[in-house]
């Protein structure tokens, strides 16, 4: 099962939640941190990130001797990444989406594709959880191909949790599409509600079942609860604002380690997700009936 943790507004608690869920699900879970512009899930795990792969995208390279400035490449390009100037064709790799169309369409075969580096993929493992993240090179605006490459590490053999980037643009869409369920983390503030509505629109566009987690609840909820009720969006968990959670987070520790009751909320959240619940209930009862170590590796995933 592939589950994505997303939000509208940033800073709502996606990474914290994704890590907490992976921890609760235990061995064999693959956590994909797709916030490639600023991956941060690894900050909560011990151990170094190991390099897995450097990621490139194909960009055009023009043989100016062959180019006769006919303009067909520039006409074809939807992004303005190649321009046809009287002196020859000019390429702007940072906005190239790697479609290869200009190279195909050039009547003089003056264009070939070359690799242009955009970032790296790294991994680490901890207590049976494998974390894989993408790290976009500084200055590169093209996140989507790297997100796709990170998602390529899902080989269908285990439960996958995707830590999505915030927002509702291309990057977020690339992280949530083709998943089985999305958990939307909402912040109960006016900005939070505004962006939560946009995120709901995105997920509905993709027709993926989803539920909400309202994080950092306090006296006011800015109408998030009412909105969910009116839109029939299941609320999987409500997590109260607590200073000790922020304190733990600020030193790279997860809430479950310092806040009794948090772990309970996470298991109930997991139980509320169709398809995930049964698996988790078994794991939860195993870890609490004194079998000692949580299940690791293939056994848990195979159930």
């Amino acid at each position: 099962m592939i589950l994505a943790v997303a939000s509208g507004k940033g800073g709502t608690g996606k990474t914290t939640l994704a890590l907490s869920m992976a921890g609760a699900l235990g061995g064999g879970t693959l956590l994909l941190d797709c916030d490639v512009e600023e991956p941060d899930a690894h900050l909560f795990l011990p151990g170094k990130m190991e390099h897995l792969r450097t990621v490139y995208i194909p960009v055009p390279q023009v043989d100016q001797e062959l180019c006769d400035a006919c303009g067909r490449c520039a006409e074809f390009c939807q992004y303005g990444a190649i321009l046809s100037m009287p002196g020859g064709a000019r390429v702007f790799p940072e906005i190239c989406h790697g479609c290869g169309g200009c190279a195909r369409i050039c009547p003089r075969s003056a264009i070939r594709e070359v690799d242009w580096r955009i970032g790296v993929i790294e991994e680490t493992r901890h207590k049976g959880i494998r974390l894989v993240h993408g790290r976009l090179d500084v200055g590169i605006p093209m996140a989507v191909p790297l997100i796709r490459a990170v998602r390529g590490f899902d080989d269908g053999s285990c439960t996958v949790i995707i830590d999505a980037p915030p927002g509702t643009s291309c990057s977020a869409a690339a992280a949530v599409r083709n998943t089985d369920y999305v958990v939307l983390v909402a912040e109960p503030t006016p900005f939070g509600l505004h962006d939560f509505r946009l995120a709901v629109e995105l997920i509905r566009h993709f027709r993926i079942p989803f539920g909400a987690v309202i994080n950092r609840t306090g006296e006011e909820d800015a109408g998030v609860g009412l909105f969910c009720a009116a839109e029939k969006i299941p609320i999987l968990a409500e997590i109260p604002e607590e200073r000790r959670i922020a304190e733990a987070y600020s030193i790279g520790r997860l809430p479950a380690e310092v806040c009794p009751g948090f772990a309970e909320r996470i298991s109930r959240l997991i139980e509320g997700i169709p398809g995930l619940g049964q698996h988790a209930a078994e794991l939860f009862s195993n870890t609490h009936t004194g079998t000692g170590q949580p299940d690791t590796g293939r056994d848990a995933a195979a159930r």
Partner: protein
Amino acid sequence: MKIAFTTTGDSVDSPFETRFGRTPRLLIYDLETDAGVAIDNSENAASAHGAGRRTAQTIARSGATGLVTGNCGPKALEVLTSAGIIVYTTSASTVADALAQFRRGELQQLSGDGPSSHDSRPGA
């Protein structure tokens, strides 16, 4: 010699447009023949990204070697400069006014520092 003007209309009497990449139209004015050719720039102007660079491409392909506009971002300016096009700036109200200013040598060239940047930091 041909000079391009950013404008909203099709003739020298048309209002001058200060924006570059989002300009609706361009008037390519031939100083020798006093003839103007209007170009529709609406497709470039509607681009989500790269409107300035695409408009620069259109101007380069028109044969113009000069451009008179209000302001121009650094990326588009670089494309224009590398094509040998000199960029002048004015806030004239019609193309005719801008043309007259150009002919009298009153126009400042855009150098790539200061107001040509889209940076809004003071003193940048």
